[in-house]
């Protein structure tokens, strides 16, 4: 773990890990279920951030890649009879392969055109899921058994929490270390100036496709976790709206920032919950407010994306850093 370079940092990381380990003993089960959803979103957001934030390739198909992972788990456990644990890595690999295929156009396409190509990927994958009923049960979805470790069933929120925490932590450590390696540096070089990267000996096709594959691998794992957690796999969880939500997460959290992916995932998962609570509260005074909840949520998502892009393009990660710096340097501003 090259992440830890000073005793203070080591202590901080240890404290955070201990905090998460004991968390379930202090909070309500509902809170734990929310944290589970956040952990899954963190994995997905990390994946998208590798592609969009670090490699500079925009993708509007992330939701569909999560769907590929979830359906791989569903099909392998119900139709082939594999265990969830065998299906989990295969889900990641399957999503990675699909992602890499749709990443091939990125050799010729940039920015705008690539966004449209990934949108096409989203539509085509969604269509396949709905209409290949023999394999995916169409819009009825697939129901799978809860995964279990020995006799311990992960249907229990607390047990699932430790599992999701482990995977999310592994994803964070892998991502942080990735950007210390040649591959990660190559991704960033491609983002900053592809031509310059090519001149320095980076094979653009190879690295772009690799970035797509890696990003889709994370998405596949996140999708597989989602399948294991909800135990019902339907296409509604993997629509273009989901893709846009993940884009919103990394914009709000901070493009090209590992911590940002975590903040963004937490923010976007908590926002609807917060809104619902607010609506319940306001419902006492304004009767019809609950009706508008969904529309308000949509509008607010959009507004927040735009506001962050305009006023803080580096997202919550930068905001948090600014706050920390302010107090570290106080009372001087430099």
């Amino acid at each position, binding site marked *: 773990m090259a992440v830890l370079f000073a005793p203070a940092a080591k202590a901080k990381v240890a404290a955070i890990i201990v905090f998460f380990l004991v968390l379930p003993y202090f909070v309500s089960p509902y809170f734990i279920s929310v944290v589970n959803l956040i952990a899954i979103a963190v994995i997905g957001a990390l994946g998208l951030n590798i592609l969009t934030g670090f490699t500079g390739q925009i993708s509007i198909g992330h939701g569909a890649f999560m769907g590929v992972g979830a359906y791989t788990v569903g099909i392998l456990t119900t139709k082939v009879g594999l265990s969830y644990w065998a299906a989990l890595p295969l889900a990641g690999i399957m999503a990675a392969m699909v992602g890499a295929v749709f990443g091939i156009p990125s050799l*010729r396409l940039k920015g705008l055109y690539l966004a449209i190509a990934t949108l096409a990927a989203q539509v085509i994958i969604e269509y396949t899921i709905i209409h290949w009923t023999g394999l995916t049960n169409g819009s009825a979805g697939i129901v799978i058994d809860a995964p279990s470790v020995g006799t311990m069933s992960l249907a229990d929120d607390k047990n699932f929490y430790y599992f999701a925490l482990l995977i999310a932590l592994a994803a964070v450590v892998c991502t942080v270390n990735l950007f210390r390696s040649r591959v990660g540096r190559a991704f960033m070089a491609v983002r900053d100036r592809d031509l310059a990267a090519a001149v320095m000996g980076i094979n653009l096709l190879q690295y772009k496709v690799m970035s797509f594959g890696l990003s889709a691998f994370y998405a596949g794992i996140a999708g597989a976790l989602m399948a294991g957690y909800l135990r019902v796999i339907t296409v509604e969880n993997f629509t273009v709206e989901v893709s846009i939500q993940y884009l919103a997460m990394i914009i709000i959290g901070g493009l090209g920032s590992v911590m940002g992916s975590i903040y963004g995932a937490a923010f976007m998962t908590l926002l609807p919950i917060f809104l619902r609570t607010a609506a319940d509260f306001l419902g006492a005074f304004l009767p019809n407010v609950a009706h508008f909840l969904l529309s308000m949520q949509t509008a607010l998502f*959009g507004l927040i*994306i735009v506001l962050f892009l305009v006023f803080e393009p580096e997202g919550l990660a930068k905001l948090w850093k600014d706050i920390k710096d302010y107090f570290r340097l106080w009372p001087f501003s430099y």
Partner: protein
Amino acid sequence: MFLQLLVTGLVVGSIYALVALGFVLIYKASDCINFAQGEFLLVGAYVALWVVTSYNVPFLPAVMLTLCLALALGVLVERMVLRPFIGEPVISVIMATIGLSSLMRGVTQLIWGTDTMIYPPVFPQEPVNLAGVVISQVYLWSLGLAILLLAVFSLFFKFTTTGIVMRAVADDQQAALSMGISVKKVFAITWAIAAMVAAVGGILLGNINGVNSSLAHLGLKVLPVAILGGLDSIPGAILGGFIIGVLENLVGGYLDPVFGGGVKEVVPFVILVLILLVRPYGLFGKEVIERV
């Protein structure tokens, strides 16, 4: 069956062409694509419907009023959302328009709800019989309008000062600035025009299917049309609209029994992937896609 599918494809294609025109106009002037185009359609359709039904305004003045509001909306959106992104990387602009689409969809739902609303009959209801193929009149109107707008905008970009200035800005913002062109003003004009074209499309579509938020999905569905024709080509958008309309109807008509329905929805996107792989600049687009 072939003839019926062909004619249906052509008339549906004329609507695609109208919507694609909005994409092309914005791309032509500002080199960015507006993922909120579908929501502009939606707003246009709702506003016109609201003016007609709530205030009993006759249809034509209502359309005029809607166009004025669309103009204001376009200018407003450009000023509030797009202006800060002049000179920013294209990825930020794409995300800003995605955010904008979410914002506009939410606000329209807040104002008008989610139920489907029906226009009072505006166009004559009895269908027309064209050489054995039956189509309703509103499609003919949209066909005529698409061709009219094609002519108007082609002439506009070729002969008027504003049109030439818009092309100059699209070509090179810095060079345009140094020639004393106000890039900001040009962007405002572009967004206003695009919003107005979208409003026209929205009103026509509202007359065909009624108005609800699914209308906005058409914005995404029409992207393949704009790409096929070439993102910066107005004739391309019109022709692309017809080609995609005909292809999706023919393929859908013949392959639906094989794949169990819904083929129509996915055909444009399969075509899109193929075009992007083979000829990303489309049929008539200028061939300066950056290759890396």
